[in-house]
């Protein structure tokens, strides 16, 4: 049900853009006003959210340690999963963010209890989520990089190189970018497992389906533009450059599918800072990953540490138990006569 609502919502956005830019001829609004506003919301919202996190204190160093600690000299430390210095921690973060290392560790529990046999509980490797998550995220990244050609004049060599590699298979005309297919596979898998796995269906919200449908529809509308409508890329670049250089002109000869694509992207940008998609920035700030396991070696300051919180004092303890302690012959700071 939540998936259907999300799908309807995304379809409504498509219809809105089609009618608005196509039938109602509001190209200027859909080419300039909407993406411009969305971009501002994205940047301001994103920065505000990150500042909001960053200004909150980290009272304690609570890394989740994933290997042997730094200890006696002759015991090798797992420096990249239980770091004790800044550079080691940076390496741990690098692996986490670039290779999705924690997800790579994923296992799946298997429970079998056939009658008459001993029950089996086992944990088997489950790398599918990792694989498709990697495909999805890297495809997304490469697609974003490719799109930078529309914003930059002249087009940097780096982007041309990325495009070359991404289309190296040379299939179809216009040549298909592999990432276009891979992002569909990645997002499709992420969606399918939410619908198929009962546990995931149970925990999934509109907040989970909506961005998946949105990203899928962005990819599909983009592919429609390139492979089916075969839109005029130079005309689009004119529009985009107009947007980035603030020289707005009435767009001409651009297919409606472009406005649909831009409208969906705008929605994603505006939605981004208020959603779970902020994990993009949050992963950098996670205190169980981005801190060294070093508080036995170095002091960590808690800004709200309250020095007035003291232990129940030894004096009060001895006052409480002086007589029996004396009788038991335990050493005392004040013997009963002194205390009396």
């Amino acid at each position: 049900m939540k998936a259907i609502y999300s799908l309807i919502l995304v379809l409504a956005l498509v219809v809105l853009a089609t009618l608005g830019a196509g039938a109602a001829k509001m190209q200027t609004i859909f080419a300039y006003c909407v993406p411009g506003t969305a971009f501002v919301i994205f940047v301001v919202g994103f920065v505000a959210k990150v500042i909001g996190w960053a200004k909150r204190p980290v009272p304690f160093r609570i890394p989740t340690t994933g290997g042997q600690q730094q200890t006696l000299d002759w015991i090798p430390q797992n420096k990249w999963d239980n770091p004790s210095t800044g550079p080691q921690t940076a390496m741990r973060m690098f692996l986490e963010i670039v290779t999705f290392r924690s997800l790579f560790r994923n296992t799946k529990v298997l429970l079998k209890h056939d009658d008459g046999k001993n029950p089996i509980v086992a944990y088997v490797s489950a790398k599918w989520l990792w694989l498709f998550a990697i495909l999805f995220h890297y495809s997304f990244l490469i697609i974003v990089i490719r799109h930078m050609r529309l914003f930059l004049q002249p087009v940097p060599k780096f982007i041309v190189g990325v495009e070359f590699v991404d289309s190296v298979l040379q299939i179809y005309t216009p040549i298909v970018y592999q990432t276009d297919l891979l992002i569909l596979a990645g997002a499709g898998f992420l969606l399918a497992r939410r619908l198929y796995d009962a546990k995931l269906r149970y925990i999934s919200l509109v907040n989970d389906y909506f961005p998946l449908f949105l990203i899928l529809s962005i990819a599909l509308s983009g592919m429609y533009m390139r492979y089916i409508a075969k839109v005029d890329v130079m005309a689009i670049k004119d529009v985009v450059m107009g947007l980035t250089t603030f020289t707005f002109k009435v767009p001409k000869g651009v297919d409606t599918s472009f406005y649909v694509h831009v409208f969906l992207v705008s929605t994603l940008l505006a939605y981004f800072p208020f959603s779970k998609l902020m994990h993009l920035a949050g992963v950098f700030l996670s205190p169980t990953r981005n801190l060294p396991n070093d508080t036995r070696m170095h002091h960590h300051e808690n800004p709200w540490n309250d020095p007035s919180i003291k232990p129940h004092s030894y004096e009060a303890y001895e006052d409480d138990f002086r007589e029996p302690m004396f009788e038991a012959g335990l050493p005392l700071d004040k013997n009963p006569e002194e205390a009396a």
Partner: protein
Amino acid sequence: MAKIIKPDEMIRSINYTPPATDWMETPNDLSPGRFAYPAKEDKVAYLQHEMPHVFGNPRVWNPSEADWKLPANWKEIVMNGFRERLDKYRSLKLFMDICVRCGACADKCHFFIGGGDPRNMPVLRAELMRSIYRGEFTLAGKILGKLTGARVMEEDVLKEWFLYFYQCTECRRCSLFCPYGIDTAEVTMMARELLHLVGININWILEPVSNCNRTGNHLGIQPHAFKDIVEFMVDDIETITGKHINVPLNEKGHEILFITPSGDVFADPGIYTFMGYLILFDAIGLDYTLSTYASEGGNFGMFTHADMMKSLNGKMYAEANRLGAKWILGGECGHMWRVINQYMDTMNGSMQGPQMQTPVNPITGTVFSNAKQTKMVHIAEFTADLIKHGKLKFDKSRNSDIIATFHDSCNPARGMGMFEEPRYVLNSVVDQFYDMPENTIREQTFCCAGGSGLNTDEIMDIRMRGGLPRGNALRYVQEKNGVNTMACVCAIDRATLIPLADYWAPGVKITGLHELVGNALILEDGEERTMNLRQEPLPGFEEE
């Protein structure tokens, strides 16, 4: 102990397919056996007197009854507390914001694996709080409501929190697998803090906390009784080894203060581990003292509130200063070591007196530079260093009837990373050691299901379900390698793993690491022992 179903029936009762009703619509099951008993009124009153901003609403109440006797403004108290913590902890705010519900954590929790209750999936456990965060603190949540996983705070939500945040042992296994490191322990700790504000609590945590505060240990052993127990153990050691040893108590002027969980002083089999420490210290001539004031290594405050944890922890430095100890040696304990490793210096480092120094092993000269700030060394690190330098002589044949495995306790595993030290010690004192399967040990270790204050008998069904992953892995090495002993470095484990092993892998006994050290350690040349620390005959002496 409440009567529970047989292991076979329990396994067959597990179903990972969630019910048809949405979790927000599923009513709370508050029948007996589903929750630990609430704290006694006088314990809460005492703690409220000690820390009024932490504990509240002492009263007699019963979770099975509809009326929980909450203060009239309970919602205001809880919501203000929630808001305050969102500003004090980046972790909480971040963990409320960035979860994508990928589900990687779902089948990592031992309570989910053994029970199948969807609210025990870590992602949903956190959603219990996240839904309130959305519904009460975010605009979108207020407008869109349930579709976006938002809801408002109600008494039933508070009851749900009580049920499920006391079915989390803060073991952090989920956090290891989370691609963003979202730590359910952190969420659980915050939820429990909020519940304490309105007097929702369990006795198995608050009675130990109040005992620790007053008598110095969670069992409430008073100083003279503590001395009696130590003398009793000294007598037993003499019976076993033929040697009378001296154990300093509350003495000033010793180099090292030794602190261990009080479970080691009181409960079988912890006492054998304690005897192991005493034998070791005597054998190497260590200049140390015990303290009755700081006689609890375990910090039950951690299961209540950061300030209570700080206050109880502060006794360690206070006592080291009073007695003039240069550094502190810590015994085998789980969450005690998470506190020492990740909280102690941050909370109480400024209490350290000028006499405290970077710990140096007086026997080997090794500088424990990894403890230069806290001045506190783990006994497994200490003993591993002694063995590496050839300072200890062992007669492994005394442990030759033992086929051992090792249970990594959650906190030294995922809150510290102590894996090789105990294994090195264990391999030095037993001949046969087999690890459990790799997805169940080291950083992926499974909890005993009684951590964070849950090792109480009235929730035995929940504990045994949560104990399934550990028990099953133990059963595996029992059948494959003939393992008959599981060693561990945690006092809670030594209490909880016994019923767990009896239930899931009958025939496996539980020991502390230093019990086996104490067994094998040769005190003087030519010494012959006929019994182990449990006063059972050693291999080869069964007939006598």
